[in-house]
């Protein structure tokens, strides 16, 4: 197997893109990544996306985006794994380059969620859950996270307000990210007063639905330095799964697929959590941040929230998370989110994260979660120069 590096990155602003269709968004991020890599052609294109069919009536995104980019005849397809679709596309691109079946690969994650009503988007998101045994009962995706949060608070004695810092820190970090959806500081008081979506999950526990696209260009690490002044090495790429339905998991609070994919990634990279300089985790809901920190080995069981309460998740804390705003404040265009995490991690590792730069960042980890924890994809990235 060959080592794989990122030689170009690109992203659109996250937010409400009334004037851009799903093809336009994918095109903008892809062109930015190709420009950054100083390339016009690639051998293959993988598009990460969850709900284009349901929301925009458009599937077949691989050929659609390849054609828009003028990549006539190229291998291209859409990769879907619910909210982990972006990282799943990166995983496929990494396999293609590592195996030698392709040299230059473009990976783009794209999602358009704001052309439809909130209720339709809620229903489309619920498709990440078990249709026959969860969604049929009136359980929204938010409610599944709420069930986990309530149980977590019950088992470990945390209060709702203890989760506030996950949202406060994400919004603070987004202030310096020009591509973030929100540039708006929030306070613990504001968090406490936010209206309930599904108890105990309030509006400020949840990431927003968004439009956006982010892309990378991959190349064999051996000659990445000849193509890019600042390549980033993919030290590890790991996928793990768990039952789709929360009720089918032996221990719903364990986030078993996160533990497994993080362990596989640590083994592949030959490092442990103590070596990671920052962690772009999947903060779709505050409870997911707590469970991810525990599953990835940054906190003991039931203690993930303590890292937020004690300020250890800020840019100067023990394990900085959501350094460019995370899902909560950069925004969560579901199928693009995993690619935003990777693009932001690459910015940190190139030293281009501006006011949010983590000093001397060498190893960054991203973790993208599909559904309420069924598909979990971890990447460890390393600065090469």
């Amino acid at each position, binding site marked *: 197997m060959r080592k794989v590096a990122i030689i170009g990155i690109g992203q659109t602003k996250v937010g409400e893109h009334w004037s851009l269709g799903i093809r336009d968004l994918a095109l903008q991020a892809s062109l930015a990544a190709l420009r950054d890599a100083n390339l016009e052609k690639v051998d293959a294109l993988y598009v990460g996306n969850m709900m284009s069919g349901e929301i925009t009536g458009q599937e077949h995104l691989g050929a659609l985006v390849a054609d828009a980019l003028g990549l006539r005849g190229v291998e291209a397809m859409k990769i879907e794994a619910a909210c982990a679709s972006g990282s799943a596309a990166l995983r496929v691109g990494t396999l293609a380059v590592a195996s030698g079946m392709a040299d230059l690969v473009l990976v783009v994650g794209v999602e358009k969620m704001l052309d439809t009503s909130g209720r339709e988007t809620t229903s489309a998101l619920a498709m990440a859950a078990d249709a*026959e*045994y969860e969604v049929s009962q009136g359980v929204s995706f*938010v409610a599944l996270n709420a*069930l986990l949060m309530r149980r977590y608070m019950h088992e470990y004695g945390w209060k709702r307000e203890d989760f506030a810092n996950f949202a406060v820190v994400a919004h603070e970090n987004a202030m310096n990210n020009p591509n973030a959806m929100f540039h708006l500081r929030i306070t613990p008081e504001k968090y406490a007063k936010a209206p309930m979506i*599904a108890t105990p999950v309030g509006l400020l526990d949840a990431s927003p639905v968004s439009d956006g696209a982010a892309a990378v260009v991959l190349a064999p690490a051996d000659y990445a330095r000849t193509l890019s002044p600042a390549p980033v090495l993919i030290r590890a790429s790991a996928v793990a799964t768990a039952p789709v339905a929360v*009720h089918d998991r032996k221990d719903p609070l364990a986030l078993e697929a996160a533990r497994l994919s993080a362990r596989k990634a640590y083994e592949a990279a030959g490092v442990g959590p103590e070596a990671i300089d920052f962690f772009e985790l999947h903060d779709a809901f505050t409870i997911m941040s707590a469970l991810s920190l525990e599953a990835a080995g940054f906190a003991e069981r039931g203690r993930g929230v303590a890292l937020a309460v004690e300020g250890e998740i800020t840019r100067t804390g023990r394990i900085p998370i959501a350094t460019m705003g995370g899902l909560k404040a950069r925004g969560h265009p579901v199928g693009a989110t995993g690619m935003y995490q990777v693009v932001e991690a690459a910015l940190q590792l190139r030293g281009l994260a501006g006011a949010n730069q983590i000093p001397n960042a060498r190893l960054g980890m991203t973790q993208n979660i599909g559904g309420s924890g069924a598909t979990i994809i971890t990447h460890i990235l390393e600065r090469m120069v």
Partner: protein
Amino acid sequence: MIEKVADNWRLRGQRYRLEGEVCPHCGAVIFPPRDICPECGKPAKEPKPLSGRGEVYSFSTVYSPPEGFEAYVPYTVALVKLEEGPMVTAQLTDVAPDEVEIGMKVEMVTRKLRARGEEGTIIYGYKFRPML
């Protein structure tokens, strides 16, 4: 997406009678039925109706529902740990949201899940109420 009439017909054993399976190899009780035992990985197709009794593992009151459930807001959903072992996701009924607590004993009842499915039919299924 509103589910099809065919889905409801196909799942009638589960929806109306909470029909699960028992593994002939390790004795695990399985719900929903899946034909392969999640405990030992061997085939498990022996039907087993469940008692419908259990307790609340967690719960949430929903204010922002998916399509088809707008008329019922706010309603409370729960993870119910059945006394035979499996966990099931279902709505609670005959109880006010602020009276629900973790550990509360509940039992299954058949109730209307949604007024109208795709073809205007009424969809029935299991819900759980406080044990009488």
